[in-house]
């Protein structure tokens, strides 16, 4: 099973790194990586060493980068293969349903997570190179662990959700649109939903949360994300039907 998952990951990465010059994926993963690395340098360079304590670092490396990166590849995972007529041959191979699904999710997860980590390291170096830098600073252990964990779990969340969407989408482009809109609705819906609550309710929530330390809250959020990853992967496994994938 591990060898099978590994084979799928190998193929997916080979395809990511081959870029997109003749249709297929809507965006070239190599271009996206370049844009993200550049973007990850500019902001820390401007902020300077305050970068190591700002929540922006966590938001960019833990949420935004994984989201953009994973969406750019996972949407194509099933829908793109179906469009390019490679899916049926893959399904006619000896690979099990689990190996194909896990391989595709893992490939996107590792891709999103690895590039987010590179962007985090690049950001740390850029912050130290800013004009107002004073000695060499780096992320605190807690902060670094939070970035590593959240980028991993959020990459997994988008990959698992994306594979589900891609399985049901007639085209890679449509899968990408549905996924982008879905994630945006989830994030902004949460923010605006909170804003829409009565002031007293918001205060109550804030008071309830303030009883916990930041570490406890971070662990709680991480556990929720982990649970979501597991549930979405399981739903993907249950939904994976060779016959439907071919006929859809």
């Amino acid at each position: 099973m591990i060898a099978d998952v590994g084979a799928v990951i190998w193929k997916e990465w080979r395809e990511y790194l081959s870029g997109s010059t003749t249709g297929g994926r809507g965006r070239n993963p190599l271009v996206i990586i370049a844009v993200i690395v550049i973007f990850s340098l500019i902001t820390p360079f401007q902020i300077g060493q305050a970068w190591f304590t700002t929540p922006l670092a966590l938001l960019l490396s833990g949420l935004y980068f994984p989201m953009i990166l994973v969406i750019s590849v996972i949407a194509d995972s099933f829908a793109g293969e179906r469009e390019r007529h490679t899916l049926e041959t893959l399904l006619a191979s000896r690979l099990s349903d689990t190996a194909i699904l896990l391989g595709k999710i893992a490939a996107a997860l590792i891709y999103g997570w690895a590039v987010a980590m590179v962007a985090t390291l690049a950001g740390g170096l850029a912050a130290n190179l800013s004009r107002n830098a004073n000695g060499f600073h780096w992320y605190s252990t807690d902060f670094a662990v939070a970035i590593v964990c959240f980028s991993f779990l959020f990459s997994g969340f988008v990959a698992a959700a994306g594979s589900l969407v891609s399985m049901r989408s007639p085209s890679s482009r449509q899968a990408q649109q549905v996924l982008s809109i879905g994630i945006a609705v989830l994030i902004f819906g949460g923010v605006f939903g909170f804003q829409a609550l009565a002031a007293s309710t918001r205060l109550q929530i804030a008071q309830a949360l303030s009883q916990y330390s930041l570490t406890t809250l971070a662990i709680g959020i991480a556990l929720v994300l982990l649970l979501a990853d597991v549930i979405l992967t399981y739903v993907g496994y249950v939904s994976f039907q060779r016959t439907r994938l071919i006929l859809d």
Partner: protein
Amino acid sequence: MIVPVPMSASALTRPADAIIRVDQLTREFGTVRALDQMSFAVPPGIIFGFLGANGAGKTTMIRLLLNLLEPSAGHAQVFGLETRQHGNAIREQSGALLEFSGLYERLSAEDNLEFYGRVWHLSSAQRKARIRELLTHFDLWDRRKERVGTWSRGMKQKVAIARVLLHRPKLIFLDEPTAGLDPVAAAALRGDLRTLVQREGVTVFLTTHNLTEAEQICSQVGIIRMGKLLAFGAPAELRASSGGERVEIWGTGLTAAVRTMLSARSDIRAVTEQNDHLHLELRDTHAVAPIVAALVQAGVGIEEVRRGQASLEEAFLTLMEEDK
């Protein structure tokens, strides 16, 4: 009048060692019945041709045998395993070239084969050696690093066939394998398939509407139309069952009166004029000499006489016509 080979379910599923056995297999897509109570058995170690027009149900049959689709009714067994329950085990021992080449166009030929080598758990050394062997055989070794997306359809088809053969499967499904290949490459592939069957005992399940090809390489064929099996047997049996022997006669003086005289004979079923010669369909297997003697007596200057049987294509077309 064509007489299809007997096709009772018991007769067709008789071979005890059949590698593929299909029993009353039916598949419906909504109101459309793509396969209709089909029963037959394919013995191991042969090239079996599944012949039919576009949309007849050939691809659906391959999908059902590989458990990529579930039957609406009936059963299918491959390697003695029920397709519904043992899809993974069946796919593990098979290789398939389906409707499309299934190649990753942004990857090189070598990477496409490397991936499927990994899928079939070939060791690194085995993959290297087998990829080299196959790409060299198909004359593509020097271009192995090129993306296959830039290649012609025929070249892609060669890589796809190499992918099917990579892990030396016991059973190979080929859906229109020579489509897109030039005549030389198509002939070479037919030779390869024959060699594979003779030397390694591989069974090939081949769908095609190229009847000349089927006639050349298939030991047995099944002819289908709109999901129904019309005939099943060796090509020679099907040709024979399509109505006796034929004689073609070239010469001078093949007038309308001569044609009328021939039509009146009891040993001739039909006389047609084709371009510069006469085409006679004999009733059963009769000697040609009395016909030639009668023509000479009628003043015909005979230049050439050819005797033969209906081709598989003619048998196929007759079947199609009769089933309308």
